[in-house]
Structures are given as C-alpha cells and as structure tokens.
C-alpha cells in the first residue's frame, strides 16, 4: 500500500489544478512545495515594507475557462479586474490604445484599424484550430490509437473549415516570424511593435526570429480559451494560488507547503514516491511533476535514474529566459505623460519599433546587457489598494531582454541595470525616481532561485516549435507520461506550455485518469 495514489511535485497553478482534478476523481493526492505559499509563479510577495507585488506573472489572460468553472475558482476567492486595455506608450504622448479588438490613438487611421481587425479575425480563426490541440493530449503521429487519430482528424477538419485561403495562410505563417507578418499587414510602426511584443514575451526570441508567429498564436489561443481578456488578480496573483489550493483541498487533495521535494525516488524500475528535504519519504503509485523538465529530470529524478538517451534529450532542452522584472514602491501615484489615472491602471507597454526590438535582443545572445529594453507595466495599486499603504503605489514591469548570466556577473551588473531601467521608464514618467521608496530588479537567474524554474523561464522551456506540441518537452516523454515508469509531467514544460493556461495540469490529470495509471 502506498501513502498516496499520486504525489504532485510543486504547488504551482498547474500542480494544484492537476491535483484538484485527480482529487475530484476520488484519488488520494498530495501536493508538495518548498515555498511556504501555494501558487508557484502565481504568487504575491511583500518586496518592501508594506508593499506587495505579484512577483512573477502579473497578468492573467489565458486561464482556461473550464478550469475556472470546474474548480469553482470564483467561489474560492478569485476575483479579477475588468479586462485591461493595452496602451503602447509613445514618446510624443500620443499613445496607442488597443482595447476591445480595436485600436486608437497614435495616428491610427481607418486603414490601420481595418488591418488590425482583419488580423485579429484571422488569428482568432487560427486559434480556433489550435484549440483542438490545446485541450487534450498532443497526438502521436505514428502510433495508431483512436484518441490521437480523432484529435488529428478534428485538427484536419478544423484546417479544412478554415477554407482554402486561410488554410494556406496558416501553413505559411505557422513557422515564420512576426516581423514579416506585421510588415505584411500593417504600415503603422507602433501597431506592429505592440503586437510583436506579445509574440516575444517570455521567449528568448526577437521579432525577426522564425517561430514567433507560433508564440503569438499560443498567446491568442490561450486568450481564446480563457475569454477573460488581460486582467489583474485582485489581491495579487497569490490569490489565484490560494484559490486553486482551496479548490484542491475542497476536492480532497492534501497540500504540504514549506518542505521541498528533494528527490523523486524509484523502487526497481518504477517511480515509487519522493524524498522530502526534511528526510522523510512518502510513497505513491505515481509522481506527477509540475516542476520544469530540467528540474524534474536533472535535479529531482537525476539523470542517473534514466536511460542515457532520455537524459541527453533533457540536457539539450532549452530553457534560458530573457525576461526580468522590476518592482518599484512609490510614495505616490506616478504620472505618465498623456495618461489619465484610469489609463494608468491598464496594461502599459513600452516597445520600440521592431528593428529596435531586434537590436535590443542581440546583446543577450552574448551575455551582455542591452542598452534599450521593452517593458510591460502594471500599476496594480490603482485598482487594488491592498497591495500598498494608503495613497502609495506599486509599479511592476516585465522587462525584455535581460541576459540570464551577464559576463560580468549579477553582483556587478544589477545596480547599473536597475538604474538604467528606471531611467528608461522616466522618459515616459518624468519624476518617477523621485517617488521611489524601494526598488528591486528580479533577474532571470533570480527567478530560477526563487521559483525554482530552470533558466528563469516562465514557460518552463523555450516555446519554439521544436519544443512545442507533440514535441513538448521532448520526444519520448510526451503526452504527460515520461520514459520513466510512474513519472508524469503536468507543468508548463508539458503541452501546451506556459502562460498561466492551466491546461497542462488539466490535460495531465485527465490523461492520467484515462490511462488508469492510478488504478
């Protein structure tokens, strides 16, 4: 008899979702996480006295609507803001506003608008096709089984339903770069780069990198599956983690926080449980890891417990990130030129024209600091005063591109970079630095340490076609099962990947149940 049917490693959103679904199916599940709070990258942290921030992901836009309803997250305390507009800040303060499927400001004319709507429409249709793939296990192509054949058939039908022209477009676009696609559809430079921003967020790629249309489609598909739009979680992202934990517990799952899994243990040729940092051993029929594939295979299981070819694949899995974050504690509401307070509460982005975006990427390939950055900014305290002392504010921003390990080392690079980033923001928000009470830069390598995501990559591995869909994380360990008997994956390193979709966790649970792995 094992202690549990399943142990889920990591109480990130996917781990909790997977556990909740398994518990709902009457399985005895334990979730273990070394952090003292649930949620993983969906977490809130007090970074300065009285100032809290969603310290990893800051927007929720892609959480699958089935997860929302199945796990009754609204009843568990999750409350979301209204959908946010995206405002791309312009130097001349005539900002570009993208909201409700339309664009305005920054001299956008009717032609741009028509192009924007046409483009959104096309992408939504493509997302509709991808949806089929995202909501279940990625199909195997050769192995003959009905589930996968059916998925492929549905996919084929979906492609046909697009009609010849759109199908041809999808065939062409799927692997190319967002740069060319933007130039094909738009003439407005700021519009191009605002969309391109969404194609490179969380990746190590620039707009000219092939596959960026796929990463854009990934995002659109997620938004399509969610339907909430870009929202802010009231109370901070940690509330999502708490809600998921509550839901899992309500379904009967146990959650053990504050003690990390030290290793995944095997008995004979099968995974049999875990050892915790405190030296205790817990047994289970299967172990499901929501940690990234590198952590799962290299650190927790250990390459020595796998066959060598699989260890090699795990080792070659790419998961460097070029995304950092800054957190600013401000004594008052900052003022951004040309923005009302209401607008300031929206999603603000600072993104140069596409060629400049590409230039901003170059240095990090050589472990150097870029002299220009892309920002995705949130001032959550406008809508949610719980995060800062009365009248004071928090500004958080995702920053691209920042090297994982600069040549000179972070000790030396950290200070100057933070100063540079605040300076770049100040161009749009004069006087920002005079409001500073505290500030911090969270580098990709900091994320690796604080959230145990290898390479600091939020997607748990570069979301490039060769690491996506039925290749995710790598051949031989797809469909949530791995090459190691009894070990499963349910994190963003599994299909369909990262972005707070919740689908890896949901799909994994359903697949595990379907396989009878817990019987």
């Amino acid at each position, binding site marked *: 008899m094992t202690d549990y049917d399943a142990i889920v490693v990591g109480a990130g959103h996917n781990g909790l979702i997977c556990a909740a679904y398994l518990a709902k199916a009457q399985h005895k599940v334990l979730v273990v996480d070394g952090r003292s709070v649930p949620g993983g990258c969906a977490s809130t942290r007090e970074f300065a006295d009285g100032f809290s921030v969603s310290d990893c992901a800051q927007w929720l836009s892609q959480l699958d609507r089935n997860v929302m309803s199945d796990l009754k997250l609204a009843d568990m305390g999750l409350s979301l803001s209204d959908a946010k507009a995206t405002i791309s800040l312009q130097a001349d303060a005539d900002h570009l506003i993208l909201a409700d499927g339309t664009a305005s400001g920054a001299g956008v004319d009717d032609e741009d608008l028509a192009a924007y709507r046409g483009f959104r429409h096309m992408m939504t249709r493509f997302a509709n096709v991808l949806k089929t793939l995202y909501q279940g296990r990625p199909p195997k192509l050769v192995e003959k089984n009905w589930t996968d054949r059916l998925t492929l058939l549905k996919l084929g039908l979906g492609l046909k339903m697009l009609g010849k022209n759109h199908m041809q477009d999808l065939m062409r676009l799927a692997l190319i770069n967002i740069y060319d696609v933007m130039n094909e559809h738009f003439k407005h430079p700021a519009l191009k780069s605002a969309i391109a921003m969404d194609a490179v967020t969380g990746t190590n790629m620039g707009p000219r990198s092939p596959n960026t249309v796929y990463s854009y489609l990934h995002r659109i598909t997620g938004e399509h599956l969610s339907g909430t739009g870009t929202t802010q979680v009231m109370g901070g992202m940690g509330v999502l983690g708490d809600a998921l934990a509550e839901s899992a517990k309500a379904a009967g799952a146990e959650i053990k926080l504050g003690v990390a899994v030290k290793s995944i243990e095997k008995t004979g040729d099968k995974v049999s449980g875990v050892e915790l940092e405190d030296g205790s051993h817990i047994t289970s029929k299967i172990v499901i890891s929501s940690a990234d594939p590198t952590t799962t295979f290299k650190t927790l299981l250990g390459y020595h417990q796998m066959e*060598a070819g699989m260890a090699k694949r795990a080792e070659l899995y790419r998961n460097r990130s070029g995304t950092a974050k800054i957190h600013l504690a401000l004594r008052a509401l900052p003022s951004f030129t040309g923005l009302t307070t209401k607008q300031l509460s929206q999603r603000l982005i600072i993104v140069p024209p596409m060629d400049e975006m590409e230039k901003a990427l170059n240095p990090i390939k050589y472990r150097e600091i870029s002299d220009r950055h892309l920002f995705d900014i949130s001032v959550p305290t406008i809508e949610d005063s719980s995060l800062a002392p009365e009248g004071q504010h928090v500004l958080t921003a995702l920053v691209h591109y920042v090297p994982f390990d600069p040549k000179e080392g972070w000790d030396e690079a950290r200070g100057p970079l933070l100063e540079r980033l605040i300076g770049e923001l100040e161009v749009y928000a004069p006087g920002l630095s005079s409001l500073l009470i505290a500030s911090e830069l969270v580098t990709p390598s900091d994320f690796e340490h604080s959230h145990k995501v290898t390479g600091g990559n939020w997607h748990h591995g570069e979301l490039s076609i060769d690491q996506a869909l039925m290749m995710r994380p790598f051949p031989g360990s797809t469909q949530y099962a791995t090459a190691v008997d009894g070990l499963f994956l349910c994190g963003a390193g599994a299909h369909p990947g990262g972005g707070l979709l919740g689908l890896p966790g949901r799909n994994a649970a359903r697949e595990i149940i379907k396989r009878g792995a817990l019987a």
Partner: protein
Amino acid sequence: MSTVSRDTMMLTTPFHSRVEAMCDLNDWGNWMGYTTPNAYFDVELEYFAVRSTTGVFDLSPMNKYRISGPDASRYMDRLVTRDVSKIGIDRVGYAIWCNDAGQVLDDGTIFRFAENEFRLCSYQRADDWLAWNTLGFDVSVENVSESIAALAVQGPTSCTILTLLGCENLNQLKPFGMAHYTFEGHPLMVSRTGFTGDLGYEVWVPPETAEALWDRLFELGHEYLIKPFGSHALELARIEAGFLQAHVDFLPAEDVVRVGRTRSPFELGLGWLVHFSKPLFNGRSALLKEQEQGSRYRFALLDVAGNKPAEHSFIMKDGKVVGTVTSAAWCPTAKSNLAYAQIEMPHGAVGDELVAEIYYQRELHWTQLYAPCKVIDGPIFQPARRRQTPAPPQ
C-alpha cells in the same frame, strides 16, 4: 598551433616497426585509421598457428576507455545490458550496450581493476556515447587508446610462452581473469581473453615497451612456433569461434541511416547478456517490450552443405527469401562450412532447415548454387583448452 605535414599518412601502432619487418606479403589494411597487416606470410598458416601453436595479433588500434570515479560502477551498470556487479575485481566481462531503443551500439570487453575503475575495450569508437552517459554520474571517462599497446597471444602454446616471459602461475588464471606483472620495469597486464575461441591471452603494456615485448615474445616463443597473424586469419578464427563483429554482423545503431537496419541483442543471439534483474540500463524498457511482443529477426549459425562459403548469400525457406548471410567461411579446423545469418522471424530456430543461395566464381565463370543448410546451436569449434584451468601444458 599546429602544422599539418602530410595529410594522407596512415597512423602506425607502437609495434609497427616489428610488424612491418615480419609482413612478408606487404598486404596492409586500414583499421581505425591504423596501418595493420591483412596477412603476414600465408593466411592459412597464420590461422593454424593460432590453432596449433601460438599466434600473435597486434590489437593496439582497439579503442580503450578508462572509466573511474565514485559512480563508475553505477555508470557501467546503466551503460551495458549485463549485470556489472557480477564482474569481480581483476575479472573481464564481455558486454554489449544499447541505445534507449534497445538497439545494439557495440560490443566489447569490460576490465574491472577496482570497485570503481574499469577499462572498456571496444571495436568501435565510443567517445560520444560514453560522454553523454556521464550526465548525472560522478565519473570520468578517458580515452586511453593511444597510451596502451596490446597484443593478442593466442593458441595452445601461448600460456607456456607467456610464462617464460615472466608471467608466473599464468596457467592458474581462469578464463576472463586478469593478472598483473612487470616487464622491463613497466606494468604488464595479462587477461585470459581473445577473439579466437582458443586458449589465449591478451597482453597490455605501455607503448614504450611495445617493441621490446614483441622482440622478447618472439625470441622466447621461437621454439614453441610462435607466429604473427593478420586480420584475415583472425576473421577465420572468430567465425569458427562464434564471435560477432560490428559493421559486419550488425551495424552500430547510431551509424545507421535507414529505418529498420538496427538490431537488438535478442536479434543478434545475445539475449543472454541482457539482465532484466537490473532495474535500469539503457534500452531496458524497449527490450522488455520486445521480449513481450517478439523480435523481428533471429541471428542464426548455419552449417552449410558443401564447401563453398555462403558469403553475402540470401537464405531461403520454401523458395522465399527469409534472410541474408553476414559472415561466412570454410573453417579449416572444424572442417565445416559456417555462416552467420540474420533470419526473419519465425524462421531460423535451431534445427530449422534452410537453403543458401550461393554464387561463386571460377575462372570468370559464375555458378549459382542452392546449398541446404541447417541452423545449429553454438559454435562448432570449442576446444576444451579454451576453458580449462589450469591451462594445459604444451
């Protein structure tokens, strides 16, 4: 900084000066980029030296890897299909290793010097695979091919000659045992191993003593009719003795381009080297599956009627091609016509009667021959002295 002198020069082994002096036929081959003799003076006589006196073969081009470190033993166990814990210190084991798909990469011998120190000796190079295998292990893998010279000393009088060389009590050494001596102040290791199926040893020394070793061996062995032998004679001996050869009887899986041309241990008749009792080794899950679902091929030893070697022959059953021959030879000692063949399942079980389609040419005239053949169990040539301890005196 380097300069290239001549870009076509073949490498030579540490014994080359001596080998060259004895290579009357001037018939050279290329083994791993080394100039090696195909034959010294007469293939058949060289072969008979191995079977009735002593033959000496320069093994230096073999690939040798030193594997050491705290995890060396676990590393080896994950690498090869057999249970390495059963190989004692100062013992040698024949082993094969597979990729994750359970397809054979190569075979070779494992020499265990200490709990966590091994030498892997292989016909193919393995640097790449061995390096990938180090992931997750505290182990060091060092290519020591060029720092060890080796001779195979094989045949009924080999024990006597090596004893004269100073290898005391060598006759007590069991098959697959290792013994350590010194030769001219340098370490000399003898293992009772070989590729000929006869009583025989392999002698391992630092390259600087190679020429002296050769000279001394031939001096001491003169009265015991020691002779050098080349790769053609070895080929005869190894077929007769039942040994497979990479790139001849199977292709290392990672060198294969075409789908379906790789082979599993079971398909090479090496299932006895697969120890499922171990919880983990490369290829284990694929091989378990194969064991359940059945193999595609069977590796068969054929006794072919007549005296025409069935080289490259198709093997037929009821007029249908069911396999092909990988190695074939007329074996002079066993006086039989042997062939190894890959036979499609379910054919090729011991006792199965098949037909080999043989083509042979005499004076530019080709003859097609359908020779009946029978699948036999085990090599035909198995002299008692191969396994006797103490080794019989000659």
